[in-house]
């Protein structure tokens, strides 16, 4: 099934003409209303009128996450606050999180995109959707929720956590579609097993999983353990939230990007040069319909490639491959974005702790486990074990409070953590993604 046949199967030529029109309108608007974009364009010697073709987009400067932080909280909004009806913020960033806003029309657009995505994932009007994405500042929960309602499905806004209750709801309400992070879905499977509930006896047909990287082998595990067909969804709050791209359940081979709302590019992350279709690089997205928070050439830091081949599902929109990594050192721990530098600033604030640390991420029982090895200094060292344990729990609590992720701290002997070897030495990711 395709939710919006007209747009989702539009011939390329017609699609590109819509893209150009919408791009030009977006550029004129941000040039007039967002000082950041105005000065960036002028610095590059460009005015919106200079962008005459889609290829001209490549002349415009990139927008980075730091630019959004620098304009915290509302500096990048392109409409007056009177017209903003919703605010979300990115998860787990120290100091300045990324704040995004939506007009009523943006919320409609988002709901439409999520209705398309859920349909591509196998949902339709008669389905009951068990939505285990977190509700709140995180865009996952409400994004799916509005899409499900737009589609006319019945949505259970169960949100994250309280896993045993979720199993009871799955058993009693008989939902047919599961939306969750892939790691949480496996956690649900285990909890169900412990409670003597088999997914074979449940009603699920499809699952739409995203908000964290996952592999093909994890897909097979999820499909087997949850007895459903699993599709990948992509999105980020800076662009709109979930619903930027979706895999169709027919092919399960690449995620269709909704190009009537977003223009994707793949660039070489080092040179910034655009790469041709098929080559792997960093995904850059320009929004062309958003009102409150348009982004121009936003660097997602996600590594993927674009595939323009026609798809068996009938959608004409280009497909991006599963995200295979990041161009920065951001980690996604249980759906929360974590930068090693944030851990560093927490450590710096604790008296006597050296900013020498190493993060290790692993997945145990399908949940991400973050361990931080932190070198102990002479100043922080005590001959009493209880003082050292107090120090580890202070570090653990401060990290949890600031970043929103649980971490287990292991104190390390001085100079046992590699120095000046760049990002790689800071992070050991043992998850098999």
């Amino acid at each position, binding site marked *: 099934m395709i939710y919006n046949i007209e747009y989702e199967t539009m011939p390329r030529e017609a699609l590109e003409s819509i893209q150009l029109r919408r791009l030009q309108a977006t550029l004129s608007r941000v040039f007039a209303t967002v000082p950041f974009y105005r000065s960036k364009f002028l610095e590059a010697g460009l005015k919106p009128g200079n962008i005459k073709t889609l290829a001209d987009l490549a002349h415009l400067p990139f927008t980075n996450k730091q630019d959004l932080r620098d304009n915290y909280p509302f500096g990048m909004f392109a409409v007056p606050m009177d017209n903003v009806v919703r605010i979300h913020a990115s998860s787990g960033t120290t100091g300045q999180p990324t704040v995004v806003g939506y007009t009523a029309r943006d919320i409609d657009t988002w709901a439409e995109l999520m209705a398309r995505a859920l349909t591509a994932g196998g949902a339709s009007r008669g389905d009951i959707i068990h939505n285990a994405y977190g509700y709140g500042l995180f865009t996952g929960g409400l994004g799916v929720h509005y899409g499900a309602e737009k589609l006319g499905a019945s949505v259970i806004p169960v949100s994250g956590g309280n896993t045993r209750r979720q199993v009871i709801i799955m058993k009693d309400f008989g939902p047919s579609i599961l939306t969750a992070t892939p790691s949480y879905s496996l956690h649900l499977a285990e909890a169900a097993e412990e409670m003597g509930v088999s997914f074979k006896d449940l009603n699920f047909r499809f699952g739409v999983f995203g908000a964290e990287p996952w592999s093909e082998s994890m897909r097979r595990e999820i499909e087997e353990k949850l007895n459903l067909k699993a599709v990948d969804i992509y999105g980020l709050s800076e662009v709109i939230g979930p619903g930027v791209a979706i895999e169709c359940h027919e092919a399960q081979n690449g995620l269709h990007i909704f190009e009537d709302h977003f223009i994707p590019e793949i660039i070489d992350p080092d040179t910034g040069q655009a790469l041709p279709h098929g080559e792997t690089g960093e995904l850059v997205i320009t929004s062309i319909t958003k009102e409150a928070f348009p982004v121009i050439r936003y660097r997602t830091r996600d590594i993927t490639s674009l595939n323009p081949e026609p798809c068996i599902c009938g959608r004409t929109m280009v497909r991006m491959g599963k995200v295979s990594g990041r161009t920065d050192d951001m980690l996604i721990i249980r759906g929360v974005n974590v930068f090693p530098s944030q851990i560093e600033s927490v450590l710096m604030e604790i008296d006597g702790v050296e900013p020498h640390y190493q993060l290790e991420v692993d997945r145990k029982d399908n949940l991400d486990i973050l361990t931080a090895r932190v070198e102990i200094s002479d100043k922080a060292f005590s001959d009493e074990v209880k003082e050292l344990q107090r120090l580890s729990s202070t570090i653990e609590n401060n990290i949890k409070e600031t970043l929103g992720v649980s971490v287990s701290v292991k104190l390390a*002997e001085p100079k046992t953590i590699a120095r000046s070897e760049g990002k790689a030495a800071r992070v050991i990711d043992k998850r098999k993604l």
Partner: protein
Amino acid sequence: MQAQQISIFLENKAGRLSDVTKILSDSGVNIRALSLADTSDFGVLRLIVDNNAKAEEALRNGGFTVKTTPVVAALVNDRPGGLHGILELLTKAGINVEYMYAFVAQSGDNAVMIFRFNKTDDAMAVLSENGVEIIDGEKLYTM
């Protein structure tokens, strides 16, 4: 009056303890008493040695985190109730024992115990007032 103890931070991994003993052995430092407190992740090794300065320098050069802590070495009657009598005195005076361990050598009919108190000076005063003999650090290191 008080004695100095050297404490060393050790990660729980094979061979770390022998790294310490090797460093001390190579620098000719003799271990007089020791205690090891451990958790699942790390341990704290506490040592009374015959030459603190030498031991500390060698261990630091060997990359260890080292700290010196004042402790009290007291003579304990080597008979039932000997240790209890001392602990009772301290409890009455509101002094906590953070940890304690036994010294290798004996002194006549007495055992030697190493104490780490929350209030070192107060503890020494209580013990002296009550006739408990405290062994001076310099004497202890070469006993």
